[in-house]
């Protein structure tokens, strides 16, 4: 699914200059627990939805090779986070929907889950 289609589906607003609408996003995930993202995200061009807007969401995306981030409930990250996003070339998007609603819209549109459900070795 193209990133520009994803923005349309969640009626989102792009917050960064870094944005390539043609970028292919192959899966998505949602979390406010960064360790969950680090533990469960599979490699690939994936999207993260989160209600947190601080630097560590971006760092987590960087380490997990996540391609784009959507903030839910209309949240706006502070300017240093926007700067870091440009440095890391990770596009940031905000949308007014709740996390549940935004995920539902994307899942219904056919964007698959990007993670393993639980760790089998625990």
């Amino acid at each position: 699914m193209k990133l520009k289609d994803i923005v349309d589906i969640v009626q989102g607003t792009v917050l960064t200059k870094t944005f390539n609408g043609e970028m292919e996003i192959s899966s998505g995930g949602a979390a406010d627990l960064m360790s969950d993202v680090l533990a469960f995200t599979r490699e690939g061009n994936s999207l993260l939805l989160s209600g947190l807007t601080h630097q560590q969401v971006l760092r987590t995306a960087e380490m997990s090779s996540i391609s784009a981030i959507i903030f839910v409930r209309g949240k706006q990250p502070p300017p240093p986070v926007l700067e870091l996003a440009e440095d890391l070339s990770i596009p940031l998007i905000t949308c007014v929907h709740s996390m549940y609603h935004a995920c539902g819209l994307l899942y219904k549109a056919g964007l698959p889950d990007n993670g393993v459900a639980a760790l089998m070795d625990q």
Partner: protein
Amino acid sequence: MNKTSSEKKEINELTRVQELVYELRVSEVMTPRVITVSPESTMAELMSILRINRISGTPVVREGKLVGIISIEDLVKAYAARRGNDLVGNCMTRKVVAVRADELAVQAVNLFAQYGYGRLPVLDQYGTLAGILTGSDITRGLLRALSQRYHAEEIRRYRASHIFEDIDSADTTLMLRYHVAPRDFDNGGQASSKLKRTLQRLGANPALLRRVTISAYEAEMNLVIHATHGGEMIAEIGPHRILLRTEDDGPGIEKVEEVFNPGFTTAADWVRELGFGAGMGLSNIKRYSDNTYIESSPATGTRLYAIFKVSPIEADADETKG
């Protein structure tokens, strides 16, 4: 929907080309030496100029100033009307679409698309003719810029990835040391970010890179969150093994045997509100590394060791073990 690595690479290349189109200036891709013709030349003279230089059109210039443009099409029309001795000034197109040398190449691309012309005269800031631009000039310029950039990064990578072959010793280890400040949540992760970039240059394969950087990030955040005075994160990189370790001087962990149990945490509420401290960090590190060891006591602080084997076949393996 998963992309193969070659498809992924294609997408990356494409974005790089798109970036370049938005960076290249007309002056970098134009042909600066322009064959011109004076409006006082005859169409017969124009014909021999076009033929000798194997071009299909040329700007018309009077005393350095662009006054029109004339093409082979105008020549054919003139000959059809038996006006071979007429002057260029009477047959040329006077309303000329031109680009400025300091404009972006992408603006020229738009003009080509808009007007369907084969060439555009290029003017400098004083309106003097500075060059001429065709569609293939832009293509050639893009290819040149792309290959220069590609080579620069390739050379950097090549040099870095051969460091272990170039240094002759029984055992070569590259040691990277990062200081991690306590409670500095805004800047936490910078050390892991730098380590990731270094490992990329050293040619680490994506699966190993991911295992090491996620572990480093969890370990770094532990220092930010827990260590009284922050600590050090050290990566010892060898050709067959990476040892990642962190050191701090307190407060230390009382029940060190419990730390790898998922959910074990001593994190404060403010840490949890920021999305950390759920007791997953150390178990993540254990899962992503080949061997993990921790020693800690309230008297000495904490030392964490995580070992990653570097095997050449790992390139194709899944990113997680088990």
